[in-house]
């Protein structure tokens, strides 16, 4: 029984342990690659085991050091967190395959793989923790690794953007700490389940609502909800593999935190908090759309597409019905996969053409037909064309919006699909159509191995689109727990 509960901490401990071991021999690159891949695959296997276990046993918790729940630190694996851990470890092992080909020897000897492991440990820890202060710590683990990754082998532009990135995150983290202090001062606990229970008892007073808005500010900064101005710069400077990790995982942790905090702890005043989230989501979508259309640089277009998706997923939270939350989870999983794919493909295009300006490329479909088709499928998937994975999430979110008569959210979210389609099709037409600019002799050969990670991700988006039943029970369970906080509370504070 106890052995089983310890599984919960493994998605964080395995990468952490491997990351530390890798620090001993930075120059043995092949060993580093092998160990990193093994650690990520092991994490993936553990999360599958956990997910299946949760369906039979209910939410699994682990009390660190045998200290009971409201007093000690607790890790909680419910379906929502575990689905995200599963997607994270799967995606990171695919992205790391791409990194093997492209990241370059200098970065590999500068502890690149150790930092990737720490990043994954931080991300998984943030998903699994059931304690707000511990969430802060795991956030910091993730951010410190990301600071290192973004500045690794720093060029001038990289350093310039990373200063912004570090500064904004330090400010956000200090607000996080302030919010935690306020909450602790008000209700005297930081265990999420305990906090939820106490707030349900005393009612969400105006003071608590204000504290919830401080949390909203913090997580918006981290996830790029409305306060996304740092995001396009920082996500476009590191190499494609790192940008893919960031784009697929980092903002999603902020989104996860918003989902968790505003469904579990501060859910009593939705007409204030969720309305503010709705307004922020709409503004995010509009701002992201303007950015995605305005820029002619493939990296900028992609990073603004990340922003649009953040707006979309949080619109689902703002609608706040079982249907929309289910849709939001589907879309979140889809978005992680497809954003990783998009960053990998864009990275490949930039590697092949040595430019990121759409105007400077043309006719790539003649040289690299597979790459062209992959990009096209990705665009369709992001827009939400039926056989692909984006469809179901969008339909459910739309259905949720109709149920609550949130017509403005409905209109904005669905118009955003058009913007996504337009901005990416423009990139597609600019890069792949027209007269080819690369002659047969100059053509850089595209190894099948470089395309393999993208091919796996394409398969994933098809599988998720064609057979959503395969994950439907998990997603339904996840949204059920999110909509019924009592299930989570009972699982954590079982002795009460």
């Amino acid at each position: 029984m106890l052995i089983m509960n310890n599984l919960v901490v493994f998605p964080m401990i395995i990468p952490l342990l491997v990351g530390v071991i890798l620090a001993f021999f930075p120059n043995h690159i092949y060993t580093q690659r092998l160990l990193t891949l093994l650690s990520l695959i092991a994490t993936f296997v553990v999360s599958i085991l956990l997910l299946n276990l949760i369906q039979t046993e209910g939410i699994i918790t682990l009390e660190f050091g045998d200290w009971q729940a409201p007093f000690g630190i607790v890790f909680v694996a419910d379906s929502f967190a575990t689905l995200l851990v599963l997607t994270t470890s799967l995606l990171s092992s695919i992205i790391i395959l791409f990194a093997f080909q492209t990241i370059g020897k200098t970065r590999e000897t500068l502890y690149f793989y150790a930092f990737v492991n720490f990043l994954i440990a931080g991300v998984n820890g943030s998903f699994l923790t059931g304690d707000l202060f511990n969430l802060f710590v795991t956030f910091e683990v993730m951010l410190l690794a990301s600071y290192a990754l973004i500045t690794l082998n720093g060029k001038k532009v990289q350093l310039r953007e990373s200063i912004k990135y570090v500064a904004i995150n330090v400010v956000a983290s200090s607000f996080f700490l302030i919010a935690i202090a306020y909450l602790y001062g008000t209700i005297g606990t930081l265990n999420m389940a305990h906090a939820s229970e106490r707030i349900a008892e005393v009612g969400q007073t105006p003071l608590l609502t204000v504290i919830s808005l401080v949390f909203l500010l913090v997580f918006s900064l981290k996830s790029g909800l409305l306060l996304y101005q740092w995001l396009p710069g920082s996500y476009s400077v590191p190499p494609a593999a790192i940008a893919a990790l960031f784009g697929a995982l980092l903002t999603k942790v902020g989104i996860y935190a918003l989902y968790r905090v505003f469904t579990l702890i501060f859910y009593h005043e939705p007409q204030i908090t969720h309305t503010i989230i709705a307004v922020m989501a709409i503004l995010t979508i509009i701002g992201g759309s303007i950015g995605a259309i305005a820029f002619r640089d493939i990296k900028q277009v992609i990073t603004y597409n990340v922003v649009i998706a953040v707006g979309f997923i949080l619109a689902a939270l703002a609608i706040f019905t079982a249907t929309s939350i289910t849709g939001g989870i589907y879309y979140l999983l889809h978005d992680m996969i497809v954003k990783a794919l998009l960053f990998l493909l864009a990275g490949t295009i930039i590697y092949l053409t040595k430019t990121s300006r759409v105007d400077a490329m043309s006719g790539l479909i003649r040289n690299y037909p597979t790459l062209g088709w992959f990009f096209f499928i990705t665009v369709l998937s992001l827009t939400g064309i039926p056989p692909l994975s984006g469809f179901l999430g969008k339909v459910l979110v739309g259905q949720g919006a109709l149920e609550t008569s949130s017509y403005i959210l409905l209109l904005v979210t669905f118009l955003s699909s058009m913007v996504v389609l337009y901005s990416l099709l423009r990139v597609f037409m600019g890069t792949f159509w027209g007269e080819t600019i690369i002659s047969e002799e100059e053509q850089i050969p595209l190894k099948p191995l470089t395309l393999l990670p993208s091919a796996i991700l394409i398969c994933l988006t098809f599988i998720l689109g064609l057979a959503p039943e395969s994950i439907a029970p998990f997603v339904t369970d996840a949204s059920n727990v999110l909509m019924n906080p009592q299930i989570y509370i009972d699982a954590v504070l079982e002795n009460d």
Partner: protein
Amino acid sequence: MKINDLILRSVTKLIVFIILTLAIYLFFSGHNAPGGGFIGGLVLASAIVLLLLTYDIETFKYSIPFDFKIVAAIGSLIVLLTGMGAVLFGKPFLTQSFATINIPFIGLREISTVTFFELGVALAVVGVVITIILSISEDV
């Protein structure tokens, strides 16, 4: 230019031992009283930094020939492994245990897994602090 730092050097030779003793005292007073691996490690690191200030980097690297990145890694490894130890015994992660044993000439002493955990923390702190200070001083 030769700096006349006779006083600093003489005082350092004496003070370093006091600091090191304090570090060890703080380390062992650990988990039950104020002190512990983190603060002990910091004090230990401050002794090393004092040596570094008094003598130059070459002498320092000659007399303490460790790669402090490795020290930090060893420390983190010890921390994680003591945490994992509990898992092997079927207890929740990070559970501690202790035993009172009779050491010849010293008498009854409490031996606890927390001490190993704290040792890891101390090594990690020393490793990180010295790595940071060395990198900064090499940069300037």
